[in-house]
């Protein structure tokens, strides 16, 4: 091997600046970033969108887009300054020293070549002979714990699941035994259980291969679970750096502190309120004097606007670009804590929504059928939030679509609203029912028609749902805007002129157009940055308290579910596996599947309980397993009965039902689940 220089760090960024040339101007996207990753170390780079974190990865491999260039400083990979390498040396560096795993593995693999061919290519570059390349490729797939490497080698990328594709990409990256492995949002878009598997795998492989890792992510918890050191990037500057645990437990930059206060992790509904960071990140190059964070900072003083802070060394390997890094604990709350309601439950209270025996069967070509939802019954009290969790394909979205009337449930089921049965299809429902059940979609870019103005978007909903027009409608639109903290100034704006958070506020306003009773919130914050997410969650909480509306909250983020939900339902393969009060479901005793989901969720405190690994793939809903549908992956499967008989689903006194043959006393209990009190939370909630 040519890697002579094993003494130099895997990566050294020395005052690195990158600029993009846009319309005759150089816009700085990275400014004076200095950091070092030692051999074998896992380093996490966190930041929100636009912070420049992906630019770091592109710059240090010299694959910046055509209008981008390194405008200052140096990037050294294994001791080589990448900016000065000739094309042969650059290829050498890419072939041996550095490897990268991108967010979407499906796109990173060539669709028209077999996995084997693409694996072999890595060894071809390293100079291995024909058959040897394939043998080593297969061996490599084995090392990323692919159980049937020969079959995978012969497959085309599209024949593999997302998790499997990501393993192949990781295998390809590690095959060259690089000094530095870059992971750019490698688990975004994967289910929590798969994400946990991939992160575990990367951690194990890091120890086996001794590769240093640069893990780029917006997900603080994922970074905390994998990395020993963390750098926080804001507007192209490294604002804080230090050992992961210490940094997250005791942030020394107001931006980091603010981010952590935005994360829902402590307590249940009604627990500590989330804070947010007001304002927006500055456009590149717009702040030329002072600290880039000053306009949004609760600690900022005159000095901050005049003088750019250096990266202060503050001991134990930590650094902060804040003049007042010793005063971060005094950072005031930046937003009012919202009001929190409690649901109206009781023998005399009619549930607002009642689902009885809802099923949904889709026909497939060739007389096959898929039961996307089977026999789901549940009810929702006024003012209650029901969290719906489960992996993709569990039937969460189908359930939401049936409630909304976007899909029609099978005969035999029944949906009642305030005690009255309503038609399966939205088009057959009276206006009263239509306006009562509304939705907030995941992605406002998709949910808001980009051709229309805010005025039209909300106004049309008011017109249709409340049945009013003219001045009455305009008045309501204005009141709705105020309710979601927007101003009439935004009325003539089209969605593309608004920020992500503002767009989601418009979507929320639209859902509240005509006194809804139930709102389906379908991953309402997962397209948003952390600092925006908390503001939307607070808004939802407050609107619920004001109007006693009920939410069905679909989210893969257990922290969000925990923070908002009164009750939680867990779904798997179209079945309800568990339902009950949030506290009982999360703390247990709970279903083995719930237990596995909870153990898969990383926490920002970096504590890792023993992860419960689920064996195998999610079965096809066309041929669901007999007996308990979870039996093929269940770590607690104990007898033949699991395969032959579907467990009962009787609720206890609290209304907590678990679809498992095991008696409750033998079921698992929550350990330090997500957001269990820890030192960091106590500090953050202050």
């Amino acid at each position, binding site marked *: 091997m040519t890697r002579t220089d094993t003494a130099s760090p895997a990566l050294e960024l020395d005052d690195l600046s990158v600029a993009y040339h846009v319309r005759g101007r150089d816009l700085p996207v990275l400014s004076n970033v200095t950091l070092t990753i030692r051999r074998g170390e896992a380093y996490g780079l966190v930041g929100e969108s636009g912070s420049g974190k992906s630019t770091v990865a592109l710059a240090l491999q010299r*694959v910046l887009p055509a209008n981008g260039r390194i405008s200052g400083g140096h990037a050294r990979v294994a001791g080589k300054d990448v900016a000065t390498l000739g094309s042969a040396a650059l290829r050498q560096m890419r072939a041996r020293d550095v490897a990268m795993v991108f967010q979407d593995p499906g796109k990173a693999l060539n*669709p028209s070549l077999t996995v084997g061919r693409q694996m072999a290519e890595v060894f071809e570059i390293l100079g291995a002979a024909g058959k040897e390349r394939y043998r080593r490729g297969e061996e490599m797939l084995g090392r990323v714990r692919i159980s049937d490497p020969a079959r995978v080698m012969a497959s085309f990328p599209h024949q593999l699941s997302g998790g499997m594709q990501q393993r192949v990409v990781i295998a390809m990256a590690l095959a060259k035994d690089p000094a530095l492995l870059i992971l750019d949002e490698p688990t975004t878009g994967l289910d929590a259980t798969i994400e946990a598997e991939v992160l575990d795998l990367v951690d194990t492989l890091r120890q086996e291969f001794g590769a240093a890792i640069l893990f780029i992510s917006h997900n603080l918890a994922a970074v905390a679970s994998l990395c020993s050191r963390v750098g926080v990037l804001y507007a192209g500057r490294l604002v804080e750096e230090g050992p992961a645990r210490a940094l997250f437990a005791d942030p020394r930059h107001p931006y980091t502190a603010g981010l952590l206060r935005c994360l829902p992790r402590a307590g249940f509904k009604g627990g500590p309120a989330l804070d947010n960071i007001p304002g927006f990140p500055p456009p590149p190059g717009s702040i030329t004097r002072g600290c880039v964070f000053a306009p949004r900072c609760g600690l900022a003083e005159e000095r901050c606007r005049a003088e750019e802070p250096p990266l202060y060394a503050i001991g134990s390997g930590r650094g902060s670009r804040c003049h007042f890094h010793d005063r971060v604990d005094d950072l005031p709350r930046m937003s009012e804590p919202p009001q929190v309601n409690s649901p109206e439950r009781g023998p005399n209270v009619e549930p607002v929504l009642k689902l009885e025996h809802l099923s949904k069967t889709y026909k497939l070509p060739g007389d096959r059928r898929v039961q996307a939802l089977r026999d789901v019954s549940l009810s929702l009290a006024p003012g209650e939030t029901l969290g719906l969790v489960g992996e993709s394909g569990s039937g969460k979205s189908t359930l939401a679509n049936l409630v909304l009337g976007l899909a029609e449930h099978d005969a035999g089921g029944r949906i009642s609203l305030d005690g009255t049965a309503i038609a399966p299809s939205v088009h057959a429902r009276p206006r009263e029912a239509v306006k009562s059940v509304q939705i907030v979609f995941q992605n406002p870019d998709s949910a808001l028609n980009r051709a229309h103005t805010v005025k039209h978007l909300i106004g049309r909903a008011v017109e249709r749902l409340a049945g009013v027009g003219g001045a009455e409608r305009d008045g309501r639109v204005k009141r709705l805007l105020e309710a979601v903290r927007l101003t009439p100034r935004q009325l003539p704006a089209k969605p593309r002129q608004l920020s992500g958070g503002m767009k989601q506020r418009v979507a929320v306003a639209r859902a509240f157009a005509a006194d809804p009773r139930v709102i389906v919130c379908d991953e309402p914050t997962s397209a948003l940055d952390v600092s925006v997410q908390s503001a939307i969650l607070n808004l939802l909480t407050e609107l619920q308290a004001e109007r006693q509306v009920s939410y069905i909250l679909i989210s893969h983020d257990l922290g969000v579910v925990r923070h908002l939900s009164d009750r939680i339902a867990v779904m798997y393969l179209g079945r309800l596996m568990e339902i009950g009060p949030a506290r009982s479901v999360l703390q247990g005793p709970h279903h083995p599947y719930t237990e596995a989901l909870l153990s898969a969720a990383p926490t920002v405190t970096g504590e890792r309980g023993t992860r419960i690994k689920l064996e195998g793939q999610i079965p096809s809903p066309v041929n669901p397993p007999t007996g308990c549908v979870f039996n093929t992956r269940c770590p607690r499967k104990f007898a033949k009965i699991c395969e032959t008989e579907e467990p009962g689903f009787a609720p206890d006194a609290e209304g907590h039902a678990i679809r498992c043959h095991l008696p409750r006393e033998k079921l698992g209990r929550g350990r330090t689940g997500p957001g269990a009190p820890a030192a960091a939370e106590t500090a953050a909630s202050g």
Partner: protein
Amino acid sequence: MGPAFGRFLLRRLGLSLLTLWLVSVVVFLGAQVLPGDPGRAILGPLADQRAVAALNKELGADRPPVEVYVSWVGDMLKGDMGQSYAYRAPVAPFVGDALVKSLKLVGVIFLIVVPLGVGAGVIAALNAGRPLDRIISVASLSLTVIPEFVSAIALILVFAVILRWLPLSATWPEGAGPLTQLQYLILPALPLVIVLFGYIARMARAGTAEALASDYTRTAVLKGLPWRTVMTRHVLRNALVPTITVIAAQTGYALGGLVVVETLFRYQGIGNLVLSAAKAKDFAMLQAGILTIGAFFIVATLIADCITVMLNPRLRAEMGG
């Protein structure tokens, strides 16, 4: 390939036959039903009613359309394309001769335009955003919309009238060898080359540019592969598949353009045959000619689809299912 491809082929073949049948209905409607009274159309408004009736009887136009259609399709299946009114002779030999001639011309056209178009497209994509790319884009775009008779006039003027390099007529002397035939076919081929060049170049450019910008190309670059390997193995392989479909679709276009070109150069191909039949109101000849053109196009797209599916593993799996 295996059984999935077999299933795809069967289904695709079935669809092609369905399309061909529908085309025959359209052609029949256009050539037999739309004119209303073919006898009157042929003989003109001043002809004697008895003569018109007699001609309609001869043409079979006095029978109900469905019956005429069924017997026409039946005859076609037996290889009998009907009787030409203008020539008072069976249609089939005329169509056969014309088809062979047109195929020769189309062959020359594609021989010239495919390498030219694909090459220009790939070069443009590799120089994306640079002046060369703009020149190729604007040129291909502008050439594509110039009607064949317009470019043909210019070509005739330059190469046949002024320079006298190429023969003006496309009809080669009796018993000419393939090279001489080629010489006669170049000038008639060029107007269509000019039109088709733009389509093919644009598709090849788009496909190459997309593949160049893809994540998998970036992965290949970051593997440290030499540029040449990245291009051949990763970029071009994925880039040129959609171009095949375009080329097939353009054969259909080429056949339409033949009407103009063959007329201009007095070349007895299928386009010329269709136009003369149209002018002579020789409906049997017209519908046989048009149906042949439709069938030819359907076969071309069928072949292109098969090649596309063979080259694209994902489609291979989906199509079979």
